[in-house]
């Protein structure tokens, strides 16, 4: 387990950061005109 963490620590952080950057881009970039009906996640 210790070997695993020492080997993958950097890779785990890099992948998490990539996902974080994708999320930030999704928030920042304009998504264009809202063309969908009212749909609800829960109800």
């Amino acid at each position: 387990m210790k070997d695993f963490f020492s080997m993958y620590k950097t890779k785990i952080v890099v992948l998490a950061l990539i996902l974080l950057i994708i999320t930030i881009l999704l928030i920042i970039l304009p998504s264009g005109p809202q063309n969908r009906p009212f749909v609800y996640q829960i109800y």
Partner: protein
Amino acid sequence: MPITGRYKVFLFLALSLAVFFLIAELAMRLYLSFHTIYDIEMARYATIVKAHASNPRIGHVHKPNVKTQLMGVAVRINSDGLRDREFFLRKNNKYRIIFLGDSITFGWGVKEEDAFKNILEESINRRYPVEILNFGVGNYNTEQEVSFFLERGLKYSPDKVVLFYFINDAEKTPRRSPFWLLGESRLISFYWSKAQSLISRILPGRTYKEYYSGLYKAGAEGWLNAKKAFLELRNTCQENMVQLQVVLLPELHDLSDYPFQKEYNEISSFLGDNGIDCLDLSGFFKGYMDCRKLWVAPDDPHPNKKAHELIADYSLDFIAMRQG
């Protein structure tokens, strides 16, 4: 313990996702303390304000006495689950009207005082003493609105009921998602929202025009239920000597070439044929070329303060009219 093969990959991905989720969820919550995202606000509305109703025809109701902020505006729910002040059951000398509807009648995204219910109450009060009760609940269809009125509205002994109808009120009664707990995560709600936008662009039949028109196809269950609910409401109102009116609210994506005129004509004909007074507001909005100026936000086509003022202006004479 040595970790080998695919377990190594699985653990790597799981840990990366966990680290990402933790940081992104915190970052998203921080971002949302300064901004609003429509779908996340709707998920918050569902988890903070809505509660499961024991009556399956109602589906959900507002929890009593809730105070929160949604879409950046204060929302308070009274002790009977209405976004309104408290009302005595016993009527005073004022004419009493109940407004039935969905999130638009609820006043989603606008302050309580800017919602058309309050504007109309103020305007009609200049003509005669009136009090209006807001029975609008987000995501209700006609069947739910009528069932909610039968269960909670009749006891207020209204003189009149006005049902505000929107194009999606012919949906089938929604059930709470089994994954409702995921709505507690802002990050998951954000990705759900992005996925819905993507789906509406790439999958056929998922744009607002196709989806809403599809609700009125011959034999569509939701529209059949809506028609039954209209007749049930008409009969109940007749039995209780209550005046009934319906106002058709416009869909705010395209007002210059209104895409749902055929559907609204069908609804108006059905109501007219069954002796229900109806006012279609879509025609009044035809001059508005830049519809998005009437939206709550660029990602939220609910009517904003300006649109609520217009709805109130255009429906004032119709609603102020008293029978007999």
